[in-house]
C-alpha cells in the first residue's frame, strides 16, 4: 500500500530464506530429541543428495514428480483454487499411462507410445480433476473438500481395478504385467552412455525433461497468454473478472484440467519411466508435497524447480541417511517437509510484518 516499497530481494529472498532456515533449525531440534547429531545427519543428507552421480540422479528423479505436482498446485493457485487432489490426479494419470502402455507396448514403437502415454496420463489426470472443478464452478462445492474426497475415491478405484482387472497372472501383489521394453521411457544414464558419460544408475529418466518443458509451458501460459491473463484475474479478483467478461466458471474448469493434467504426468515418470508396470501407491504423497513445493517456489516455475530439487534432495538424502544410520527412519524427512510447509506457508507472515516494517521505516525516515 505504500509509496515506499520493500526491496524485492527482501520479499522474495530474505524472508523465505529466514522461514526455511527456521524450519531447518527446528528440524535440528528433532534430531537432537531423538539423540542424533544434526550436523552428522545433515552431512549424510547432503552427501546422499548431491555427493555422487547416482545420488544426484535419485534427487532429480524425485524432483521430477515434485515439479509436476508443484506446477499442478501452483497453476490452480493462480486462479485462486486450492487443488489438494494432486495425489488422486497423479494416481489416475498413472492409470492412464499404464493402460496405454499395456495396450500398445507390443504393437507400437516407443516414439509413438511415449507421446500417446503422455497425453493419456495428462487426460486421465485432467478428467479426475474435472468433476471437482465442475462442482466448484457450477455448484459451488468447496474444491478443497471435493478434491480430498477424490483422493480417497481414486485410491479405492485403483485397488478395485488392480485387484480385479489389471493384476498379472501368477503374482502375489496387485501389480500388472511388466511392459515390453518398447514402452519404457529411456533412462538418462542410457541416453548419456553412448556419449561416453557415466552418470550412475538411477531411475532418472526422460520424464525429467518433460517436467522442465512443463515449466516453460507454465511460464508462457500464465504470464504471456490471454488465458493466463484471465486466469490471474480470476485468481486475484473474481469480481473484476466478471466485469471483464471472463467466464469464471470456465476458467475454473480449464485451469483445474491443466492442473490435473500436470499432476497426471507423475504417472509418466513413475509408471513408464521407472516401474514399467502398473502398481498401487506409486504416488507416495507427491501430490501433497506439491503443495509445499508450490508454496516455497512462490508459485513461479523457477522457484518450483528449486523447491522440487530441495524436496527431492530431502527424499534422497533421507533415504541415504536412514541407510547409513538405520536408527533414523526416512519419516524424519516428512517432518522436515511439514516444518517447511508450516514456516514458509502458514507462518509466512511471522517475520514479514516485522522485516518489511523495518525496511519501510528506513525508507520513510
Amino acid at each position, binding site marked *: 500500500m505504500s509509496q515506499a516499497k520493500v526491496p524485492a530481494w527482501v520479499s522474495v529472498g530474505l524472508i523465505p530464506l529466514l522461514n526455511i532456515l527456521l524450519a531447518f533449525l527446528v528440524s535440528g531440534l528433532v534430531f537432537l530429541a531423538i539423540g542424533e547429531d544434526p550436523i552428522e545427519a545433515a552431512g549424510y543428507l547432503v552427501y546422499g543428495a548431491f555427493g555422487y552421480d547416482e545420488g544426484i540422479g535419485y534427487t532429480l528423479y524425485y524432483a521430477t514428480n515434485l515439479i509436476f505436482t508443484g506446477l499442478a498446485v501452483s497453476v490452480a493457485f493462480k486462479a485462486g483454487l486450492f487443488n489438494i487432489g494432486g495425489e488422486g490426479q497423479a494416481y489416475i494419470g498413472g492409470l492412464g499411462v499404464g493402460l496405454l502402455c499395456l495396450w500398445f507396448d507390443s504393437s507400437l514403437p516407443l516414439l509413438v507410445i511415449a507421446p500417446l502415454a503422455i497425453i493419456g496420463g495428462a487426460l486421465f489426470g485432467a478428467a479426475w480433476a474435472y468433476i471437482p472443478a465442475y462442482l466448484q464452478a457450477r455448484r459451488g462445492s468447496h474444491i478443497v473438500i471435493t478434491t480430498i474426497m477424490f483422493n480417497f475415491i481414486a485410491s479405492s478405484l485403483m485397488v478395485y481395478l488392480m485387484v480385479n482387472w489389471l493384476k498379472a497372472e501368477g503374482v502375489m501383489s496387485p501389480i500388472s504385467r511388466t511392459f515390453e521394453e518398447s514402452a519404457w521411457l529411456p533412462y538418462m544414464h542410457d541416453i548419456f552412455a553412448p556419449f561416453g558419460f557415466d552418470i550412475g544408475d538411477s531411475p532418472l529418466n526422460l520424464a525429467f525433461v518433460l517436467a522442465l518443458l512443463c515449466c516453460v509451458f507454465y511460464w*508462457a501460459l500464465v504470464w*504471456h*497468454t490471454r488465458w493466463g491473463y484471465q486466469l*490471474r*484475474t480470476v485468481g486475484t479478483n473474481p469480481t473484476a473478472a466478471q466485469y*471483464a467478461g471472463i467466464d469464471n466458471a470456465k476458467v475454473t474448469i480449464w485451469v483445474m484440467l491443466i492442473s490435473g493434467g500436470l499432476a497426471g504426468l507423475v504417472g509418466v515418470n513413475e509408471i513408464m519411466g521407472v516401474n514399467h508396470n502398473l502398481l498401487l501407491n506409486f504416488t507416495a504423497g507427491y501430490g501433497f508435497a506439491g503443495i509445499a513445493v508450490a508454496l516455497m517456489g512462490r508459485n513461479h516455475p523457477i522457484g518450483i524447480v528449486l523447491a522440487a530439487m530441495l524436496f527431492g534432495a530431502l527424499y534422497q538424502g533421507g533415504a541415504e541417511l536412514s541407510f547409513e544410520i538405520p536408527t533414523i527412519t526416512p519419516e524424519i524427512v516428512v517432518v522436515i517437509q511439514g516444518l517447511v510447509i508450516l514456516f514458509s506457508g502458514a507462518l509466512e507472515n511471522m517475520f514479514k510484518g516485522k522485516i518489511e516494517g523495518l525496511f*519501510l521505516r528506513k525508507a520513510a525516515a
Partner: protein
Amino acid sequence: MTQQTHPYSIELEGISKRFGTVQANKNIDLQVPAGTIHGIIGENGAGKSTLMSIIYGFYEADSGSISIDGQQVSIRNSQDAINVGIGMVHQHFMLVENFSVLENVILGAEGGAVLKQGMDAAREELKRLEQEYSLDIDVDAIVEDLPVGLQQRVEILKALYRGAKILILDEPTGVLTPQEADHLFRILKSLKEQGVTVILITHKLREILASTDNVSVMRQGEMVAHRETSKTDKEELAELMVGKKVRLKVNKDEAKPEQTVLSAKDLSFFDGQGVERLKKVSLDLKAGEILGIAGVSGNGQSELLNVLSGITPMASGEIQFAGQTITANAPKNAAQMRDLKMAHVPEDRHKMGLVTGFEAYEAAVLGYHDSEAYNGSVLMKRSAMLEECNERMAAWDVRPPNPHLKTANFSGGNQQKIVIAREVEQNPNVLLIGQPTRGVDIGAIENIHEQIVKLRDAGKAILLVSVELDEIMALSDRIIVMFDGAVVGEVSANEADERTLGLMMANAWNEGQGAQA
C-alpha cells in the same frame, strides 16, 4: 439524566495514527461539550472513521490522549470504550446477520455464562428503551431480514443497552432515505434531551446545519477547523473541507440528444437469495445525452449497471442495443457487450474495475485483453500494451506515470483515472459510469466531469449512476429515480430540485398532489 461534572464530555489531545505509510490521523485535538450534537465533516479518506474508531477502541492510536468527563482514560479495546460509556454506530454495520435482534444486542453483555436469564432480562430492558426513544423493533426478528433503517436501530439499541452516554454515528444517513434520516434525527434529538452526547459524521452539509450544535472539519488526517453551527454556512464548510474555494457547478452546454442508442424494457433481476432486485426497469438512452440515475444506494442501481453491461444475466426483459436484441434467452456477456462498443466504469474500482495485484499496464487492458491489439497468435504483446499505457498515462496525467507500478499503489484518484481512461479511450457508443468521483479529490473531480461532458458533446450516450445528488444534478440532462429496484420517476435536469428528488428517492412523491406528509 446524567450528572454533568465537566463541560466536555469527551476531549482528545494530539491523537495520531498511521497505517503503513498512510498518516490517517495527525495530531488531532477535539473537544465535545457534554449533551450536544457534534458534527464532524471531511472528504473521503480525511480520517474521520479512523478517529472515531480510535475513540471506540477499535484501533489503538500511535500517540495522544483521550479524556472522558475530564478524566483521562486509556482505551485499548472496545470493551474499555464501552466501560467509559461510549457507544458507536459504525459506517458499516457491525451486526451478526443471522442472529436475532436480541442476540445481537446482548452480544458482549450477556449477563451470565448461560444465556437464558440474560436474554429474558434484556428483553425487558429493550422494551423500556424502545418506548423511551420510540425505537420500535421486533426483537426476535433475524437481522438480515430487516431493512437497513431498522438494522441501524439495532446498532443504536446496542449502544443504549450498554448505557452509552456518548454515542458516535459514522455516516448514518448514507444508506437512509431522507425520511428515514428525519426519523433518525428525531431520535438523536431525544437522546440529546436525555443528556447523551452525540458525535455525528456525515458528508451532507445540510444535515450538519440542521441538527448539530458544533461542527469540526477534517482534511487529510488533520483537524483544520471548529465552528459553532449557528455561525457558519455551507460555503464556508465546503471550503474548509477541501482547502480551497469550490466551484460547485459544472460548465456545460445544453444537450443535443439524437437517436436512441440503447433501450431497455422490463428488466428484472433476482439476486442469489432470490430477492427481486430489479423490477421491470425500462429506460431509453439517446446519443448526446447524459442520463442520470438517482437513488439511495442499494435500490437497484448497481444491479441495473451490471445487467446492462452483461456482467450478470437478466431474469427477464429485453435490451435493444447496436442492432441486437438481448434477452434472458439470448444473453450477451460483458465481453460481447464491449465488442458492441459499450464501455463501463464500475462503481467500485477496487472490487471490480481493477485487479489491484496487477501492474498498471495489465490493469489498463482489463476487459479488452482479448483484443487483437494486444495479442499475437499465441502470446500477448507486452510491448504494445506498455507503449499504449505510457501514452495514456501521459494524456490523463496519471501520477506516477509508471506502467510497472502495482495498481494498488496508486492513490484513489489516479486509480480512477486509469479506469476511466481505459473505458473512454475505447471510443464507445455508450458509456455506463457508476460513482465516477467516489473517493476522488476535488481537483480530479473537475477533470473527470469535464471528460464526461466532452464525451457527451462528441455524440455519445452516457448513463450516470451516482448517490451524490449534487453530482447527478450537475451533470445530467435527464434524471431517473430508482427506489426498491424500480424506476419511480423521471425529470428533466431543468425541473429537478433536491426536495422533489429526495421525496422520489423515498418513494413518497405523488405526481399531481405533491409530497405526502
